[in-house]
């Protein structure tokens, strides 16, 4: 009788571990967003709510629905990020009031150096902090990378890998504006 019970417990433990594994795999988007967008597909943007770096409080992607979002992944200690920082800062001002918002995701960074970076390059748009979870969800493979999200909350091509130029930025924003209409 005791032996049967022990066998039952062992089977239950194995099944539970299997369940955890399946849950873990099914909840990983595993970089699908970047991959699909790079193939020219339109993908629903993984939702998120993160703490803000530039001010107190949190910001959710859902709160920006109805606007085109330029989603930029960066780090204060990433050299290529410094090369695009002014372009982004200038771009955010140029597109202000045109249903376009810039949103930075500061990955695995300390707040002090991040704020210093923002002041140095004149970045005034909202920045949220993340600890690699969004990197995984969006399929970011390095920094910086930029995605364009249309008014309906979908990531649309192109996806910029590496420092964004003014031309690429404007192109992406125009396409996202066109997708959302």
């Amino acid at each position: 009788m005791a032996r049967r019970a022990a066998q039952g417990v062992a089977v239950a433990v194995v099944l539970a571990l299997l369940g955890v594994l399946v849950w873990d795999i099914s909840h990983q988007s595993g970089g699908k967003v970047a991959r699909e967008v790079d193939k020219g597909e339109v993908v629903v943007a993984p939702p998120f709510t993160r703490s803000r770096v530039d001010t107190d409080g949190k910001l959710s992607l859902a709160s920006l629905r109805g606007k085109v979002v330029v989603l930029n992944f960066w780090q204060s200690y990433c050299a290529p990020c410094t090369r695009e920082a002014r372009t982004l800062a200038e771009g955010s001002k140029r597109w202000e009031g045109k249903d376009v918002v810039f949103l930075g995701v500061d990955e695995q960074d300390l707040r002090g150096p991040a704020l210093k970076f923002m002041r140095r390059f004149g970045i005034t748009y909202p920045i949220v902090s993340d600890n690699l979870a969004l990197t995984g969800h969006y399929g970011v493979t390095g920094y910086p990378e930029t995605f364009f999200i249309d008014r309906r909350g979908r990531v649309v091509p192109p996806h910029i890998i590496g420092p964004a130029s003014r031309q690429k930025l404007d192109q992406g924003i125009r396409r996202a504006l066109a997708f959302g209409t």
Partner: protein
Amino acid sequence: MRALLLAVLALALAAPALASEQHPTQGELEAELVCPQCHEPLDESNSPIAQQMKAYIREHIAMGWTKSHIVDSLVGPPNNLGPSVLGVPQKHGFDLLAWVLPLAGIAAGAVALATGAWVWSRNRPSNNVLVADGPALDPALDRRVDEELARYDG
């Protein structure tokens, strides 16, 4: 008297821990934290984020922050680096399992060992039973053994 001794011992053990909490050193914090990029202890890493963290620790020790305050501010707000910077699992939430499971495993092993030993010792036939069950000596042979042994008694 015994209670007093125990109290003194507890105080002696608690004092260094309290000192470490109130006045942490750069070395101990760097040894207890991990670089979130390379997953090496902070004192062995030279990655950019590790250097930022070392500078942060230095600055906040100088400001008089406690050890847990510094660690909490790196893991949670405002820096939000997450628990991956901790060299050891946390003692609450899911991470608690990392502390509890080994102890539970040792306890379960000890119980299994004790149970096995108890069952084995109960099932093992005693010496008396072995003699009783052994083949009986032939009476003539038995008598001869007695006679042989009697020679030593003289």
